[in-house]
């Protein structure tokens, strides 16, 4: 059985599930050549407080992968895991999105737009009434935000904050 399985064929199937070819390489602002570097989350923001930060081993598509363990500033013991993948290009960020969702057991995730969340160039939320996890790419930065504690609290606000931080960094480096 094992020899019949092809990782490449599986990857292609995942891409089809996620309509990859409709959004791959596209950005909503700037173009596919935009490259943000040195993007880090601040230790405190309106929606989260970072309690742990760790550099993870990148694959060939990323320059840096940083995982943040965040808690809610309201002190409700809710833990949120945010992983920021700083990729080599917009295209690599989109391929990395596929790399990550290939490890999900859900065959497909809903697009964020269908759940009243507009962040990134491409974004997928989670099943259910609330987004308990969100994965989105903005330029060459892929962000995965997951609630690590059960409970009916969405990660939408954190996703918006992370996206705005990326956009702010992009706009700061734009000439004029």
């Amino acid at each position, binding site marked *: *059985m*094992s020899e*019949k*399985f092809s*990782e490449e064929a*599986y990857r292609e*199937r*995942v891409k089809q599930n996620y309509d990859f070819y409709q959004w791959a390489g596209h950005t909503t602002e700037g173009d596919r050549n935009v490259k943000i570097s040195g993007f880090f989350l601040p230790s405190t923001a309106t929606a989260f407080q970072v309690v742990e930060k760790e550099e*993870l*081993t*990148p*694959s060939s*598509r*990323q320059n840096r*992968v940083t*995982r943040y*363990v965040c808690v809610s500033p309201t002190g409700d013991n809710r*833990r949120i*895991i945010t*992983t920021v*993948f700083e990729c080599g290009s917009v295209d690599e960020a989109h391929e*990395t999105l596929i*790399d*990550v969702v*290939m*490890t*999900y*057991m*859900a*065959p497909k*995730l809903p697009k964020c737009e269908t759940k009243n969340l507009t962040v990134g160039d491409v974004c997928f939320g*989670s*099943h*259910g009434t609330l*987004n*308990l*996890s969100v994965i989105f790419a903005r330029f060459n930065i892929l962000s*995965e935000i*997951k*609630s*690590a*504690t*059960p409970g009916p609290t969405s990660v939408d606000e954190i996703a918006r904050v992370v996206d705005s931080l990326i956009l702010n960094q992009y706009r700061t480096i734009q000439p004029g």
Partner: protein
Amino acid sequence: MSTQKCRQGCLHTLFCLLLGVLRRLHVISRNFYRRYCSCGLRLVAISFNHDSASLSGDAMNIRKNFTQTVAVPEWTAGETLPADSPAAYAIRETQGRTITIKAKFMVSSNSVTKAQVRACGGGVLGQLDPQTITLANGVSVPEFVSFELRDHLIGADGINVEDVTWEWEFRCCGGCKWEPLATTRHRIYTVLEEPNLPWTQQPASDTQNPWTDALDYACVWAAGQQNEIDAATAITKQVNANLGLVYDNASGAPFYEPQPLCDKFELTQFLAYLRNGTGLGNIVNCMDCATITTTFSNLVGCDLHASKMGSGFALTPFRGIGSAIFACPGFGCSFSYHEVAWTGSHGNADPLFDACLRVDNDTNPWAPPHSESFCVNIVFSTNPGAPLPFAVPFNAQSYKERLCTNDAAGIGSCNPIGPWPTSSNGRRPVK
């Protein structure tokens, strides 16, 4: 007493016998007795893993966790907590072999050349029979003296963790009375055999040598088990039912294998979760469950690996980890893939252990009512390639038939794949 000459000989022995009687009658003081019939012997260190190249005649190579080692000798004077003096033994490798510990002694008088030492208690390690040690220039010769564990019970209770205490005693310089030398405490782990990958038995500093922080859990979860199947069964049930883990119904994402490679197991984070509920939280997916089961089972001597099945198959309702009911996941009645702790070469006939869910074990697993069963030591498929659908009653103890819908989209689409390419053959290194 330390400056006294240590006398020997029959006459001196008789003299000490008399002083011993007088001491017992409280006619003379302890110090008076010691002045003539004792020495200032001290126990300085005890080494359990005195041969890092072997685990058949001594303890195995271990460390505390990813960053902290276990120094050898494991016990030095002043240590009082059992956890500060740990040792781990493998039942299979030590069975029928002579097991020894080594201890170092010092005495303040150079004239002392011999002493007798013994230790009472010792729990699973047993007492240490009286043994004459030689001293030269105030230090034992050889520096670390071997003591055979003649009365050990390693293996009698299967997998185990036990805090043991030795009450050391000595006599010297013709003294006939055993005197207290030291009380030492140790944490002793017993596993079935040499831990399998990702665990290794490299010289002491290797980060993949067994961690006592993990043995503290694995040896409790599998306590008393005498073979690999029972040990993996106990650990699978523990992971599924008693750790507070909950399935990620939102997307089925892994939490304890770092993206994007999923090439390691975040054991340090998982231990933090077990200790105080922090780490990377209690939400898990199949990759997490398979990796946790594999890592803890292999630590006590099992030989599992995390391996996938798939890809893209329809599910019959199951009871997901942390759920009270039989249902499909929140994201729908299908898996893009599924990962379990598998034996052998992850083929149809190879039994597996799945801590992520419980399946319906009755004669109709595809319809209510559901009669749940842990997925332990269950063959992946007893009927690979059989025509679908299967007839009811279905009696086979066969995993995929009880997980998938009874059709081509379910059972027909669920096949063994193998480990993730980046997972070190399903034995993710720990970090």
